[in-house]
């Protein structure tokens, strides 16, 4: 190669190139569309562009349309001539729901899962994560793309569903309710699939997770269609106001849970120094509070205490699962998180528990559940007159026992996990496994020992079954005996001991104080917050 044959690289001035993407549109509606597209999540724009060119979407959308048209023709031809004088909407609607369930409850959630895992597999995730998009924006982008797909599939079947209403035999309320439920379930499944996709970061885990997600989706769609075809559609009647309120409350709670799941998925792919604990714990608090208030509203409406006991159990299980994950946290408050620690004494007393760390998280959960139990008990006393068939004591005892169990088991779990080196991978999964093992042993060992000592005969409840959550709580709800009293004393002492020890061990985290912003960050903040742009000399070197 000689110097004479090599031309200078062709680098043009850079302003001549014209393309529909690189040019600003002239027409009004196009400019408005561009303005909107620039404000929504870039991942949605990217995925819509990709989907429009992809075979997978074309095939699945086409098949859905073909299936809907085919079912319409087949069903109508089978129902002729009855269709002219009898209501025929219900069987058609059932068929459409079956057709809709496949894309909405299998293809869309699994597509979202694959989309997230493919980012890791194709090495595009790193490019995404070093862009200005936050981890939460990445997850929300995937979720929004799934929602766009859901809307497209719904729009494809919308004319068919309108036809079922015109054929009579099915009410508008039934159609809208079950459509809404299908969409809500699809969104929930997508959120869960994204969470699993975010957690499964290695190839092996991704393969296992794909099988798990696919199995779960098929099970979900099977259960939903079984319910829908056997009970849901046929038994659906016009609702009264309390049912509508219950549905509204349920949707609100589900929305919060989906938000919590998406935040958790975002946390799983976020940079380690980022503080994800605080937003997660706030969402948990909102979920529990929302559930509590709606349940309280319904309880006053139906005047029964069973829903409250159910709520106490439900929130206990949820907090145990969350607690198992939190106690597996590595427990490091990064200097970045320390910059936002509360400054005032009152702030530190109430808000420090929202910050990262297994110990702080444990105390936060125990306090949250204590607040729930306290609120339930207070409400129970306040509204004693509306609980006519029960004394109300069972709620107090059940609530207290569950609080002791939560404090004891999670605290013990955290103490054991503390002995595990911080660098060990999959600490959270290990923490969940440990809690499950501990619960099994605590239930089975006393049970087998007493059974063996009793010559393999049935035996009544005794204080030695104090760590058996199900039996002790069930017994306490039925009747408060002397043995229950002894169990309560044992559990109280154990819970106080474990809680106290954990409290002492998280002193270091509690004592951390807010650190000042580094000068460079402060300088940058000032530039960002300055109302006028800093004038610069364009000719300066």
């Amino acid at each position, binding site marked *: *190669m*000689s*110097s004479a044959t*090599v*031309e*200078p*690289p*062709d*680098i*043009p*001035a*850079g*302003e*001549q*190139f014209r*393309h529909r*993407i*690189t*040019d*600003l549109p002239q027409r009004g509606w196009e400019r408005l569309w561009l303005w909107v597209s*620039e*404000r929504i999540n*870039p991942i949605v*724009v*990217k995925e819509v*562009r*990709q989907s429009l*060119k*992809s075979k997978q979407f074309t095939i699945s959308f086409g098949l859905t349309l073909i299936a809907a048209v085919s079912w319409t023709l087949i069903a109508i031809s089978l129902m002729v001539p009855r269709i002219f004088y009898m209501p025929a909407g219900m069987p058609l609607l059932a068929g459409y729901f079956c057709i809709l369930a496949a894309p909405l409850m299998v293809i869309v959630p699994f597509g979202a899962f694959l989309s997230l895992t493919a*980012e890791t597999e*194709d*090495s*595009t*995730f*790193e*490019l*995404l*994560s*070093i*862009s*200005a*998009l*936050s981890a939460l924006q990445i997850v929300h982008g995937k979720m929004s793309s799934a929602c766009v797909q859901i809307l497209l599939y719904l729009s494809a079947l919308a004319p068919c569903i309108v036809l079922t209403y015109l054929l009579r035999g099915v009410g508008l309320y039934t159609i809208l309710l079950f459509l809404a439920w299908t969409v809500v379930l699809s969104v929930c499944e997508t959120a869960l699939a994204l969470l699993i996709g975010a957690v499964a970061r290695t190839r092996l885990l991704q393969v296992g997770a794909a099988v798990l997600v696919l199995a779960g989706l098929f099970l979900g769609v099977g259960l939903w269609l079984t319910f829908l075809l056997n009970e849901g559609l046929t038994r659906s009647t016009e609702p009264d106001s309390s049912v509508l309120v219950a549905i509204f409350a349920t949707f609100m709670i589900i929305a919060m849970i989906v938000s919590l799941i998406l935040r958790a998925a975002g946390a799983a792919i976020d*940079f*380690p*120094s*980022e503080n994800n604990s605080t937003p997660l714990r706030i969402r948990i608090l909102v979920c529990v509070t929302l559930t509590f208030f709606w349940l309280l509203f319904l309880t006053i409406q139906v005047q029964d205490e069973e829903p409250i006991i159910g709520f106490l159990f439900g929130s206990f299980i949820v907090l145990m699962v969350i607690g198992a994950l939190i106690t597996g946290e590595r427990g490091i408050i*990064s*200097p*970045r998180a320390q910059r936002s620690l509360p400054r005032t004494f009152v702030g530190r007393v109430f808000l420090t528990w929202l910050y990262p760390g297994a110990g702080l998280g444990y105390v936060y959960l125990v306090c949250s559940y204590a607040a729930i139990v306290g609120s339930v008990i207070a409400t129970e006393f306040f509204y004693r007159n509306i609980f006519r068939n029960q004394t109300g004591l069972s709620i107090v005892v059940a609530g207290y026992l569950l609080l002791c169990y939560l404090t004891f088991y999670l605290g013990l779990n955290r103490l054991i996990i503390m002995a595990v080196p911080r660098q060990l991978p999959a600490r959270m999964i290990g923490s969940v496994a440990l809690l499950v093992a501990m619960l099994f042993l605590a239930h089975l060992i006393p049970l087998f020992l007493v059974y063996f000592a009793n010559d393999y005969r049935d035996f009544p409840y005794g204080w030695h079954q104090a760590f058996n959550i199900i039996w002790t709580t069930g017994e306490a709800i039925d009747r408060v005996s002397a043995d229950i009293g002894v169990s309560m004393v044992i559990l109280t002492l154990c819970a106080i001991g474990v809680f106290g020890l954990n409290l002492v061990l998280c002193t270091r985290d509690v004592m951390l104080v807010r650190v000042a912003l*580094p000068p*460079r*960050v402060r300088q*940058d903040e000032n530039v960002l917050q300055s109302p006028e742009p800093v004038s*610069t000399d*364009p000719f*300066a*070197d």
Partner: protein
Amino acid sequence: MVDTNREEKPTDVATSIPPVVVQSTTKRRGRADHPMIQLRRVYRFFGNTRAVNDVSFEVEAGQVFGYIGPNGAGKTTSMRILSTLDLPDYGDALVDGFSCVNDPDRVRKRLGFMPDNFGTYPNMNCVEYLDFFARSYGLVGRERTKALRHTLAYTGLDKIAEKSIRGLSKGMRQRLCLGRAMIHDPAVLILDEPANGLDPRARIELRHMIRGLAADGKALLVSSHILTELGEMCDAIGIIERGQLIVSGTVADIKAKLRPHVDVVIRLIDGGERLGAWLVGKPNVDQIQASDLVVRFQFSCDVPHAQAEMLRAIVAAEFSVLEFSTESRSLEDVFLQITTGAVQ
């Protein structure tokens, strides 16, 4: 520091190409009062392996820093730490004064990273790919379109803007990756093996792009195995082996430190052996190898004036000199001398 230390590049085929004047869409950056890239005692362990072991260096604005090392030396790990894709076990990395550990969001706005192995999306063409990343960096409206046009033109992708990414050649993919890294006009660019798999022409073009970006005031950290490329485009280099930065500085400084003498070759019409005997005992002369027509020796004074004096003395002694030349050491020689080739 940058301009004063810049080494005079040797003239060869590549540098015979006229320098390209790059017209940036952005204003030329002012010099910051801190290094644009800074590694402060960074350690990174993978089990018992010290992938990065107490590495510190700085890169100023407008400087191209070459990062050299054998496979598994810790180059990519250091670059990933700087790009907020990995965390150091100890120490900190700073970009434009912001910590990569504690302020990754601020670092990302100022940083463009071109990994060795980068991913692409299916069913996308070049312009859509760049548009997606422009949007991801928060560019909107005229700012976005301007950035896209500039990047496409700068990387030469404007002619194949509508071409599917999966159908691009290796060189074009490298250009696309560079375009993605610079779409938001970052102050710092980290390029991991950018010339990998490129043909000679593409390498020359890439080198000009890199120099153009540095001239625009950006700080560039470039790793490569093609040492001749680095020697020609870098203002300073760092050689890393087994996780440790063995040496860093300008290429000229490092060469001078490693061997403070030059190899002199003299070709004659005849009387080479006589010249060899004449040179014995002369100051700064060592390791004389003489044949009838060629004499080689080491001259331990790397000053052109001293070399001229020596030539004058030889001619004055009536030796028939045809050619008097000095052999400078290449970056490859430096690399081979410094590194042991050991892996961990």
